[in-house]
């Protein structure tokens, strides 16, 4: 009887641990997605403001001198 209870405890512990791990994974993914979404929203807002500024016809759009592209951060893909 005791042996059966012990097996049940181990099984339950494993299930709980798996559930916790799954919850943590889902949470982290959610945060990452939310951050990506916020970045995308920021960029969309900047693009909209830029297009509005350009629409006024008072600005030039000439390539500048003295700048460099930065390597994308790990996990990012350049467009």
């Amino acid at each position, binding site marked *: 009887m005791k042996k059966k209870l012990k097996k049940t405890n181990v099984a339950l512990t494993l299930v709980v641990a798996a559930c916790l791990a799954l919850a943590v994974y889902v949470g982290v993914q959610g945060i990452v997605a939310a951050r990506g979404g916020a970045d995308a929203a920021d960029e969309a807002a900047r693009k909209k403001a*830029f297009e509005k*500024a350009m629409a006024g016809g008072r600005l030039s759009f*000439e390539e*500048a001198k*003295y*700048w460099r*592209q*930065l390597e994308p951060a790990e996990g990012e893909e350049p467009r």
Partner: protein
Amino acid sequence: MTALAVECELCPRRCILANYQRGDCRVRVNVDGTLYTLVYGKPCATHVDPVEKKPLFHFLPGTPIYSIATAGCNLHCKYCQNWEISQTDPEDARNVDLEPARVVAEAQRTGCISLAYTYSEPIIFYEYTLEASRLGRARGLKNVLVTAGYIEPAPLRELCKVSDAANVDLKSLSDEFYREICGGRLEPVLKALTIFREEGLWLEVTNLIVPELNDAPSSITKLVRWVRDNLGAETPMHFSRFYPMYKLANLPPTPVATLTMARNIALEEGMKYPYVGNVPGHPGNNTYCPGCGQAVVERHGYAILAYRLDGNKCNKCGATVAGLWAPPPGDVRWVF
């Protein structure tokens, strides 16, 4: 998916810009991984000024200079005297279309022999300044930079190759002042000043004296000594009067006595050509011969009242007066 970020390498801020983000100067923007300038050929100010207004007192005196500026600046001085254009977005300024070739044409049409990149900060409209300078030089015009000198060495050296003179606003010799009042740093400005000297431009230095902020005799002495030891005693220095403006409208104008004191400190420290600026009629408006003390150029503000030089020599004692002097225009003349 994320577009590439870019780093602007024009000025010491080294802004890192995400897609569609603008630099601190307001006029440079990253679009899909390429940096663009928004003010090329789009000045918000164009005027014909006396060269003395820049101020340049030893460079073709009495001549008109075609002066341009765009909106924006890479410093944010709380006392900025041109803040309406320097601290605004370029799309909110009253810009005109004036390509570099037209800048040169307008300068020649209006009888100017020089071009000035001024009022706001030519560094932030770098590409426009560079091209207009190239075209202007090819047509025999001189190029003048009126700047705070907040620029990286490589672009500055390239610009110096097509420039003839500069007036650099050295705001203080305190890094804390630069950080707290101007939103920048001192060291890059000092580096830029030495580059201007190395590259052989005619160089004059302006120090706007603001009550309570940079008017202590010890601060002025420190600044004067740096100029003397690093740029030379023949570098003209302009101690200019502050008028309440922008975020420091609560301060009083600089007392004339403070400006006189600054000029006297410079004389005591061995500077040959210290001036008092923004106080018309002050004896410190004049250029005095370092040999005999004669007033070789008498001024009232920007106007020249008397001119006593033969070429670059005092007409009384023959001593050399440093500068690029125009042919003697006559005994007395008024300009503008």
